[in-house]
């Protein structure tokens, strides 16, 4: 569905995106995981024809983004990281303009369906400026789904949301996946990447440093982590291949220890020596 080959974007002296090559299968939820400034948003902007790459190629649904941006735009929906709803307009007007721009045939029914999906139907005639952050994120998602896109791009969709709203958003993303859409999501939330994604690409300083399913990435590190605080107050982590190994190490520690399953942040730390957040 999506093929990226040698994608590079340079701002000044900085390689914001550095020679990324990857592919996303149709119907998958693909996650780009990395800290702020890793190049996730720049990658999404290039895939959605908002930013022109300095080199490399992006193909979506068989079309080259650089050559056929018009064809690409017919098949994508975008939830940007920066809220770009028109705050002066109502929720309904925002979706109406978006539906017209994407030449949606049955706009009224799609708008009502999507506003109900994100629990904003009763606020359809309210100005967006009065909406909370969570309501605006939900409205952005409802807007992106108006043209029923084959590929949905979500750039940090749950940033700043409370856990309850975040889970509601995840449910909607899972539903869109069931409907057969391909989803590309950027996040720096470990849990988000783990619960939603079939494949995860880990980005650091613009480069793709790992690419696999969350399970395989975690297995490559070791399934269990034993943590304890040493005499100098530092967090010491031991990576173990099995639960028995983890308990063996835990027994040997004199201070209190925590045994937990590994997560994608452990993968990131192992690969870069840094934390994601």
């Amino acid at each position, binding site marked *: 569905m999506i093929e990226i080959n040698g994608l590079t974007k340079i701002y000044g002296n900085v390689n914001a995106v550095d020679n990324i090559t990857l592919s996303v299968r149709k119907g998958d939820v693909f996650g780009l995981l990395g800290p702020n400034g890793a190049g996730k948003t720049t990658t999404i*902007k290039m895939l*959605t*024809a*908002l*930013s*022109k790459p300095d080199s490399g190629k992006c193909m979506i649904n068989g079309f080259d983004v650089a050559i056929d941006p*018009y*064809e690409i*735009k*017919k098949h*994508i929906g*975008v939830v*940007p990281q*920066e*809220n*770009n*709803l*028109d*705050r*002066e*307009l109502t929720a309904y*007007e925002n979706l109406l*303009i*978006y539906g*017209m*721009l*994407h*030449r949606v*045939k049955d706009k009224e029914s799609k708008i009502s369906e999507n506003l109900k999906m994100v629990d904003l139907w009763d606020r359809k005639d309210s100005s967006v400026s009065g909406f909370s952050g969570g309501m605006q994120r939900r409205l952005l998602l409802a807007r992106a789904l108006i043209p029923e896109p084959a590929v949905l791009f979500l750039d940090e969709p749950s940033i700043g949301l409370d856990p309850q709203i975040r889970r509601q958003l995840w449910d909607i993303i899972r539903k869109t996946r069931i409907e057969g859409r391909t989803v590309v999501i950027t996040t720096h939330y470990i849990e988000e990447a783990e619960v939603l994604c079939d494949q995860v690409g880990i980005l650091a300083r613009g480069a793709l440093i790992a690419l696999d399913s969350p399970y395989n990435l975690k297995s490559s590190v070791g399934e269990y982590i034993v943590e304890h605080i040493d005499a100098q107050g530092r967090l010491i982590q031991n990576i173990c291949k099995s639960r028995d190994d983890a308990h063996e190490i835990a027994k040997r520690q004199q201070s209190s220890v925590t045994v937990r399953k590994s997560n994608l942040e452990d993968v990131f730390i192992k690969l870069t020596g840094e934390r994601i957040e």
Partner: protein
Amino acid sequence: MITAGWYPVFLNEMLHFKRRLLKLGYLFSAMVVPIIYLIAFGFGLGKSVRIDGADYLSFLLPGLVAMSSMNNSYTWVCNSLNLNRLYFKTFQIFVQAPISSSSIMAGEMLAGMAKGLFASSLIIIVGFLCSPYFSLSLIFIMTLLLNCFLFANMGVIIGMRAKSHEDTATYSNFLIMPMAFFSGTFFPVDKLPVLFKTVIYILPLTHTSILIRKAHMDAEGTFSLCILIVYATVFFIYGSKLIREYSE
């Protein structure tokens, strides 16, 4: 029903315009500058001035319509596009939609024209109330439409090029302000020194001011019309190009 690509861009701006209109402040701000000029120059200074044998008010009113249509078509598009692109990021939804760059250009331009025509119509109403000699000819209406078209296109160009909202004020000071004062709004351009006059004749509002006062088309009017059409076309093409090449 499927709509043409320019329409949602235009509608988006018109929804904002409708909200502005409901606030009385907008009406006053659209009218206050030309009304001040009308009172100061038309009723004050104008009492003792005659141009080509006619009273000054008859000379001033078409010039004020030209100036007001320029200001409103240009300023609204330029500010709105610049803010929407740099701060609110709502311009980006147009770029990511399956519509052509010329559709975005046309939608923005038509919105600018609508606002320019609205502000001009207020001055025209005042003109009918203040001067028994004020009238609308076909040349007047055609020139007004062309002027709104031209300066709305220029608004898109500056809105796309300005790197910050403060930059738009700089462009305005160097382009719009000199035209408002020297391009024939308040006095005929041929009264200026030769060297200065040559520069003023390059500016598009000068040709609007010439054409809008013509009762019948003559060689000078035809020349000014051609200049305005060339400017408007070049601005439209260049504005479309800037939108097409937009990249963050």
